[in-house]
């Protein structure tokens, strides 16, 4: 679904078009029709100028879908251009089906994240399933074999039955699709907040691997070359809501059409194997997935990218329903289809391979050199427009933005105005926090995903980043998705930077080198200046964060209108990061591995309770200033972690973030049921109270488990990299004991572990 | 040859616990339908076929139900067959 991607293709020079070009013909489409399709009167005029004639009904329809927010990014494109997209490792940046980065030895990794928010709100199972299907296709379209899925999910609270229904359906949908296709779902995140009752967010990231010479792109080149449609047949599913008003739809079609698409993971698996076989046998010149805007998008984008034109005969499109009209065929969003330009003369071989996999294949047209996309049926020319105008010339708007009033108001909240917890209450508070929606174990979710199929999952879900081995090699890739929506709500730019920092840290904790980023920008209505401000700030923060870590953005998508008219979701710029490990055997897990190890806290703990889980859980307050993003400290930590992993110093390593040190230490203990005795006195460099040491969410911190004999070398390495390292205790026993300056608390690992593990399941059962 | 429409219903044998049915019943009870005694889920399959007469059609549907549509280890099936007259 490349149309949804971040685009950077010299748009500006095309923006204005031939200003005074003569407009041929008469207007044949009524204003109410183009308005019903979502085009403004100005946009209609723009189209006339761009193509030098009055478009007919089908042409207006094609422009309306290509110029929709979903495909054209007309409200976000100018801001997205601020993202860094170039880097040494980037083999393919934004503008294609997926980004690709080099991981050495002629190997590369293709990856991308996309949202499927609105469909999942309407039909949770199919919405999430087809979201998975779309992003998986984006990966194998590039020639890559998908080897991992991650799914960041954002839901309303579990005390509402509708939210529970959505959670249940979304998780089952992702499982149902990914498990059947046989791609392990190795990670993701889930975050719960009231704002997502309005509109849940379902973001899905897929990752694949390939050799450099296997990269295929969505380009149609070579006049006379055939264009083939492969995979499923074309039906009336998913034809967009804007078209309901259209008089052109037959009554029968109205009745049979479904706005919800149904995913077919079995067909996707066959299509995946068939496409990779086509690539392996070198039969593909160019290929693109059919997603949003179906054939309209795939034909115009492939032609435009190749600097070509295309002639398509709709009679040749394999259909699953009778009596489909051109409008329906061009706009159908039937799933599991691909448009392909085969190597000339190999059409027969291509068809044979697709037949072997029980899939349809049909030549539906050919590439031309005139730059025009021509659609015919029964010999009549139905549409004739310049492909690049359709694919690339959508207007890009500057939207008004203004800082929302709440930002300064909530940002000035001082957590010290609240009563401090008593020392005797701390153990109970930690237990309560460990069983809260955002901090509890997500086992209920990831145990429904096959996270091991493919025999490559080295670090499984439940820790920090996942690590997957690239088949047939000893290389690994580390994968994570991150964002703290509360930080982004309180301080969007800092929140986005912190999301990049958290992702980079988690990747580095496994021993991997952070490489590149994909993202989903989930926001409310962009016409609201406050929402647009948050969106813009999120992108700026993402850009700054990515510059700091040298991790370019290779793609992603934007999802606006996540609101009910009044309440919008929190600005949610979800980050997906990929890192590489040259020796996957050296991958470092989280969770204490054995008794008797030394525990070292890396990084300083400051008075940073703003926007914390502690405030939210214990006081129901979402306010204050989120922790500060400290670029120098984060960078130093990452270079330290990479070296420490390479030296084999780390038995385990764990991020210290939401919920603070208390939760990080507890999670480490729960990993393998090994307790610890910890004293934070030496680490308290800012003179904090005990509870603040426990719950502060200062970033650039990590907990490292090291063999006692290697502790000194680890400390030396920390000094060399300019990071603070504090020896804080030893692993062992079945209790987690934490002391500081004469105060102490004790937790029974097994007991707390029980409620940590069961919390989500119990909440979803309505208990 | 005439056209027939067979409607095949496949259900778990009565002796076998149907966890989906139990879950649906639990849901109904919690919605207040306290008179619901039991729920069983099954599969409904429509087969369009051509045959010389209804007896032949029935024989074919019986055969494919046994061979593929139902697994007699755990399921049972029943069906109806009706001639379809072209519109």
């Amino acid at each position, binding site marked *: 679904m490349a149309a949804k991607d971040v685009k950077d293709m010299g748009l500006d020079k095309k923006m204005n078009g031939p200003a005074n070009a003569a407009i041929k013909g008469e207007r044949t489409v009524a204003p109410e029709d183009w308005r019903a399709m979502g085009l403004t009167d100005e946009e209609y005029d723009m189209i006339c100028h761009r193509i030098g004639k009055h478009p007919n009904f089908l042409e207006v329809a094609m422009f309306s879908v290509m110029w929709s927010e979903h495909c054209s990014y007309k409200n976000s494109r100018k801001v997205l251009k601020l993202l860094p997209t170039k880097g040494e490792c980037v083999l393919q940046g934004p503008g294609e089906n997926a980004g690709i980065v080099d991981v050495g030895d002629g190997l590369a990794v293709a990856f991308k994240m996309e949202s499927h928010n609105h469909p999942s709100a309407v039909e949770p199972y199919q919405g999430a399933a087809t979201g998975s299907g779309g992003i998986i296709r984006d990966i194998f379209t590039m020639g890559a074999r998908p080897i991992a899925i991650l799914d960041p999910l954002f839901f309303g609270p579990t005390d509402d039955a509708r939210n529970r229904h959505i959670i249940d359906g979304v998780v*089952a949908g992702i*499982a*149902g699709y990914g*498990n*059947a*296709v*046989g791609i392990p779902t190795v990670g993701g995140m889930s975050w719960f907040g009231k704002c997502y009752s309005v509109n849940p967010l379902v973001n899905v990231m897929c990752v694949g691997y390939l050799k450099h010479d296997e990269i295929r792109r969505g380009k149609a080149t070579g006049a006379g070359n055939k264009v083939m449609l492969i995979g499923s047949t074309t039906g009336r599913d998913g034809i967009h809501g804007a078209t309901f008003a259209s008089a052109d739809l037959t009554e029968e079609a109205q009745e049979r059409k479904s706005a919800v698409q149904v995913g*077919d*993971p*079995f*067909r996707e*698996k*066959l299509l995946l194997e068939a496409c990779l076989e086509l690539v392996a046998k070198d039969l593909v010149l160019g290929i693109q997935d059919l997603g949003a805007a179906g054939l309209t998008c795939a034909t115009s984008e492939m032609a435009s990218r190749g600097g070509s034109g295309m002639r398509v005969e709709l009679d040749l499109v394999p259909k699953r329903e009778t009596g489909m009209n051109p409008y329906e065929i061009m706009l159908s969003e039937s799933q599991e289809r691909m448009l392909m330009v085969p190597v000339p003369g190999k059409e027969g071989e291509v068809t044979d391979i697709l037949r072997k*996999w*029980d899939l349809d294949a049909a030549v539906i047209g050919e590439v031309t050199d005139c730059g025009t996309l021509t659609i015919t049926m029964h010999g009549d020319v139905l549409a004739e427009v310049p492909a690049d105008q359709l694919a690339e010339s959508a207007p890009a708007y500057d939207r008004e933005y203004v800082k929302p009033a709440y930002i300064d108001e909530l940002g000035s909240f001082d957590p010290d105005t609240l009563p401090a917890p008593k020392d005797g209450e701390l153990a109970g508070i930690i237990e309560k926090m460990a069983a809260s929606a955002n901090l509890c174990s997500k086992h209920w979710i*990831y*145990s*429904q*995903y*096959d*996270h*091991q*199929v*493919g*025999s*490559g*999952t*080295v670090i*499984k879900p439940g820790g920090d980043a996942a690590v997957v*081995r690239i*088949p047939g090699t000893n290389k690994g890739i580390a994968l994570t998705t991150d964002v703290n929506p509360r930080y982004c709500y309180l301080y969007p730019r800092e929140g986005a930077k912190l999301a990049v920092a958290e992702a980079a840290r988690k990747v580095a904790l496994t021993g991997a080198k952070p490489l590149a980023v994909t993202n989903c920008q989930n926001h409310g209505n962009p016409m609201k200046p406050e929402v647009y401000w948050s969106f813009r700030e999120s992108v700026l923060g993402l850009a700054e964060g990515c510059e700091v870590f040298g991790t370019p953005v290779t793609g992603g998508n934007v999802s606006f209108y996540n609101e009910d008219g009044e309440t919008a979701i929190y600005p949610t710029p979800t980050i997906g990061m990929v890192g590489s490990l040259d020796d*996957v*055997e050296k*991958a470092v897990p989280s969770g204490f591995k054995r008794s008797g190890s030394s525990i070292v806290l890396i990084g300083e703990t400051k008075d940073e309770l703003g926007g914390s889980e502690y405030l939210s859980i214990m006081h129901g307050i979402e306010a204050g200033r989120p922790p500060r993003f400290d670029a120098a400290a984060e960078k130093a930590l990452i270079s330290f972690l990479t070296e420490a992993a390479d030296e084999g110093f780390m038995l385990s390593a764990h991020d210290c973030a939401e919920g603070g040190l208390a939760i990080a230490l507890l999670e480490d203990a729960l990993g393998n049921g090994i307790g610890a005795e910890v004293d934070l006195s030496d680490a308290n460099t800012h003179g904090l109270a005990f509870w603040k040491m426990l719950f502060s969410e200062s970033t650039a911190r990590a907990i490292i488990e090291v063999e006692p004999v290697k502790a000194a070398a680890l400390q030396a390495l920390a000094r060399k990299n300019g990071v603070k390292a504090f020896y804080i205790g030893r692993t062992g026993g079945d209790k987690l004991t934490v002391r500081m300056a004469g105060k102490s608390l004790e937790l029974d690992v097994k007991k707390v572990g029980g409620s940590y593990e069961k919390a989500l399941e119990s909440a979803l059962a309505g208990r | 040859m005439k056209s027939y429409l067979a409607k095949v219903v496949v259900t*778990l044998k009565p002796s*076998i*616990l149907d*966890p*989906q049915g139990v*879950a649906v019943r639990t849901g109904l009870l919690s919605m207040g339908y306290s008179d619901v005694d039991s729920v069983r889920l099954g*599969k409904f399959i429509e087969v369009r076929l051509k045959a010389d007469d209804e007896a032949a059609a029935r024989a074919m549907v019986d055969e494919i139900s046994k061979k*593929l*549509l139902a*697994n007699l*280890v*755990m399921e049972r099936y029943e069906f109806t067959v009706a001639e379809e007259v072209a519109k």
Partner: protein
Amino acid sequence: MKIGIVVFPGSNCDRDIERAAEVVGSESGFIWHKDKDVRGYDAIVLPGGFAHGDYLRCGAIARFSPVMDAVSEFAEGGGPVLGICNGFQTLLESGLLPGATLRNTGLRFICRPQKLRIDNVNTPFTHLYKKGEVLDFPIAHAEGNYYADPDTIKLLEDEGRIVFRYAEPDGSLTEASNPNGSMHNIAGITNKTGNVVGLMPHPERVVESILGGTDGLRVFKSVMSWCGKGGVR
């Protein structure tokens, strides 16, 4: 020694079996489901996945794939055949093994490590294990709830044909250790002659310590040594 891995449309653990074979040093090859011949292979594995989408019933359509006649013939001739997860379901549907699998009692797909007790070490795939040993194989299925009529269960018990059972770490059989509601905690069984074995858990996922364990290695080593010695232990 060459292991034949049957690939149905929708199989997705085929490459994992290939990797397991590589780890134990066995040759392997893929057999497309439309092939009618399994000659040249010493053992056949039906891998996990969703053959034909599992849309009607797990394994129901796969059993009618052309290759299954050859697999049956191979099994009747005493050749070692292993069905894992969806492969096990296909063996059940085809009648090479008795019984059927129902939806998990919890209704959800479950992917997690699972303790198993091994009760039959006389098969080509288990002879390197010790009877009563407790192993850790992952499970990953939504329909693994083993069912057979009481007479069949009695026969399986009497003839010692239950190969793997879901168990506690100490080997005891409890309801809590049964992840899916299977009768008699059955995770895997064998046929009368002991050469066809099927199980829901995935031994091929625990053949390398980097992937979380090596308990499954001996499944593949067993069949290698079995075949290497001409079909005897």
